[in-house]
């Protein structure tokens, strides 16, 4: 265990920014704090960095308590969203800064700066000043600067948010490769689920100051423990249902068998049925089948390789809608258009039931 966060709490006035968080961080992993803005992820990272004080709790690093240690003695490398390169120094000077603070020998500093800039493919930019570089280049310098003093861990605070989409996906890959190459424990904060899913070994989903779920990217997508996670990660349809006996719910007039329950079974409880758009299948056969309902096509969106269908159905005067995704090839075969009535199959193994 590399870092051990125990019962960490932080308040700003009346607001509880981080509420009794426990978390273990494993040596060498890239762990990602993911959540909507204001969920406390950045505050938690800043407390690990030492930039915020803890109201209560402990941060143990290999058994030593960091809670009272000043940030500069923790030896963590940090990369900020705003790059934060010192504008009065050249790229080389920026990378050398942490080494000068540690009073390295001149020749050691020079060779380390060369080494780090080569690592991020910027060796030819050493004499430039930050404002002469693009955003992506600046952030790579910031990475080199953070890694130069051989930190114990790397802390990334929304490192890609200020960059445009193309640079972002390129740098995403670069950071991940760098991190795996060096085997350095890395904690990254992001509000971008795509970033978290593609880069992280483990994702920590946070909401309102607390951890909601911890797991691999696949786990949190495939098996969200709460409706918050289900809604926050990827796209999810939610339908109002009432519970029936033996693992089924009543949706409109039909009984639907559901595979995954996060609430206890019971009769006639209001609940939410969740299903991802890509799991909804078109049913062409004519024999009635379990988990098949009839819906109307309300709208069709063409998105290139796929189509998105907005489907609606009405029961007892209440209208509900859900989205589904179909491949373009299938759409061509089926020749669907707005206003058509179709049957869809909701596969039991991909249906979750959450409390209201």
């Amino acid at each position, binding site marked *: 265990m590399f870092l051990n966060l125990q019962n960490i709490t932080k308040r700003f006035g009346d607001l509880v920014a981080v509420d009794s968080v426990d978390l273990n961080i494993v040596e060498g992993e890239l762990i990602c704090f993911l959540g909507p803005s204001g969920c406390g992820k950045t505050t938690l990272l800043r407390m690990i*960095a*030492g*930039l915020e004080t803890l109201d209560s709790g402990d941060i143990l690093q290999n058994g*030593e308590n960091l809670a009272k*240690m*000043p*940030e*500069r*003695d923790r*030896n*963590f*490398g*940090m990369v*900020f969203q*705003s790059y*934060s390169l*010192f*504008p*009065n120094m050249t790229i080389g000077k920026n990378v050398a*800064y*942490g080494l000068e*603070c*540690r009073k390295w020998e001149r020749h050691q500093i020079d060779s380390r700066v060369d080494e780090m800039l080569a690592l991020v493919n910027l060796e030819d930019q050493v004499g430039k000043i930050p404002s002469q570089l693009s955003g992506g280049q600046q952030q790579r310098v910031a990475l080199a*600067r*953070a890694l130069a*003093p051989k930190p114990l861990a790397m*802390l990334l605070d929304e490192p890609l948010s200020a960059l445009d989409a193309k640079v972002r996906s390129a740098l995403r890959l670069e950071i991940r490769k760098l991190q795996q190459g060096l085997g350095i424990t890395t904690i990254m904060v992001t509000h971008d689920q795509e970033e978290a899913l593609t880069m992280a070994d483990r994702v920590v989903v946070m909401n309102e100051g607390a951890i909601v779920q911890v797991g691999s990217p696949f786990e949190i997508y495939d098996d969200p423990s709460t409706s918050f996670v289900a809604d926050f990660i990827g796209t999810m349809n939610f339908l109002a249902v009432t519970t029936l006996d033996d693992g089924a719910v009543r949706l409109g007039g039909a009984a639907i068998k559901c595979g995954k329950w996060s609430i206890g079974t019971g009769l006639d409880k209001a609940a939410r049925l969740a299903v991802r758009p890509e799991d909804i299948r078109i049913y062409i056969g004519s024999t009635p089948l379990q988990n098949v309902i009839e819906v109307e096509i309300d709208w069709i969106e063409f998105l290139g390789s796929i189509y998105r269908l907005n489907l609606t159905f009405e029961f007892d005067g209440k209208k509900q809608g859900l989205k589904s995704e179909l491949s373009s090839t299938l759409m061509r075969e089926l020749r669907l258009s707005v206003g058509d009535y179709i049957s869809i199959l909701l596969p039991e193994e991909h249906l979750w039931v959450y409390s209201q």
Partner: protein
Amino acid sequence: MALTIKWPETVSRISERHIKIGMTLAAAVPLTIFILYPLWAILKLSFQHTDGSWGVDNFSQYFSDPGFVKIISNSFTVSISATFVTIILAYTFAYAMRRSSIPFKPLWSFIAMLPLFSPSLVQALGFQLLLGRNGVINRTFGTELDIYGFWGIFLSITMYALPHAILMLSAALAVADSRLYESARMLGGSNWRIFWTVTLPATRYGLMSAVFIVFTIVITDFGNPMVIGGNYGVLATEIYNQVSGQANFNLGAVIGIILLLPAGIAVIVERWVSRHQSTAITDGSVPLVIKPNRLFDSLMLAFVVLLCSSVLVIIGTVVFASFVKLWPYNMSLTLANYDVDVQGGYAPVWTSIWMSCLTAVLGIIMVTIAAFVIHKLANSLTKFLYFLSILPAAVPGMVLGLGYIFAFNDPDNPVYMIYGTVLLLAINTIYHYHAQGFLIATTSLKQISSTFDEASAMLGGSFLYTMRKITLPIIWPAMISLGVFFFMRAMVTLAGVIFLVNPSNNLAAVSVLLLDDAGETSQAAAFSTIIMVVVIGVLVVSQGIFRFFKVRNVSLIS
């Protein structure tokens, strides 16, 4: 093991805490002594009777005297008129600079700024030389124009306040979102309608701020009414007469409090207004591109030339008069006026330059410490320190100067050691202009993103190391411009120091007043010219330094 590494950490933590406490004290103590205490002293004295008892008699005596009431009404009449006209002229001028495509904009801006570079009475001196009893107009045409009184004060303080208003309104008009103007045009708005519905609302906060700042400047101005006010008494001259003429300190304190009220209210309203001034421009804004428009540009150019000519005529008259044998009777040129033989000769000029250098250096240190402590070390004291830092904006120079007499002209007070010295004059000037200097310093500190501190700390840099390697190298140009600001104000200030000078350390700006009072108008003009040359010289040199070090985005005039 744990113990051996804990020790140095603890030591560095404690010393850093001490540095921060030390800096907080370094900001708090001078602010308390040199702003709060003098104001307290003046407040106390205004409620103290000549026999030593306490009460409101001073105030009731003042307000029951019709002469005094007349002075209050004079003050407001002339200040409101001058504010109104200044704002209209300044807005039009700033609009021409920012929203028209007239040629030679830097030249016009420089000319309009000229009144900033001279003592506040120079405008009055110019009007006096042109339109006074012995002015060139009356003498040449045999007319009996009487400039002394309302019109003299009105004209000279309008010209004096103009550059201040132009600076503020230019800033308000500098930023505009092109998209708004394009939508307005697409919707069929006429230029006039677009001005009323887009431009004016976008600048309304800047406009309101300018109104209150200008009002404060004109109601507290002392130099111009002294020279050209004649029998038209205003509060600023009245306070001088009570204190310097009749040694009636209690009444002086009362007028000080009365003068503090309108200026204080104006500043409070201005603060409130400027807090609402934000986010008109967002990331998505597109800068407005000015398109030439022949008719509009010609009108604007005509206005700008007219305004600049007026300023040049008045200031030029003073400069010209300084080279003339006997204005306006013998207009042959001479350097004799520069051979000043009264009021200590050139000594006041050297004293002024020395005092200004001292003000610049100490001002940079004191104000930067205050801005740093308030901006970066948020603690329970800093809200109050912020209040003290911007309080001087509401305190007229004469009131602060009077407060210094009451507070420090007392052998029991430790500050008495420097009473009557150039050092106290410099300190008085720093705290008189503390609010503006503080805002300049705060603006430059805000440029240093707080993540620089954090990035440095994460890389292992200590507080002092960060200051030396990051903070200071980034803010030095702003500190130079802060120094230039203090130097300029110290060279031309009159109101703040008028009660504190004495024959052994007289200042150039005060000499101008005394020379003019003694009828030595030409020598007064010569002294004014010297002051302007020194101030413009310092500006040119500083600009040269900035050019050399390729510093941009730092303005020397604020």
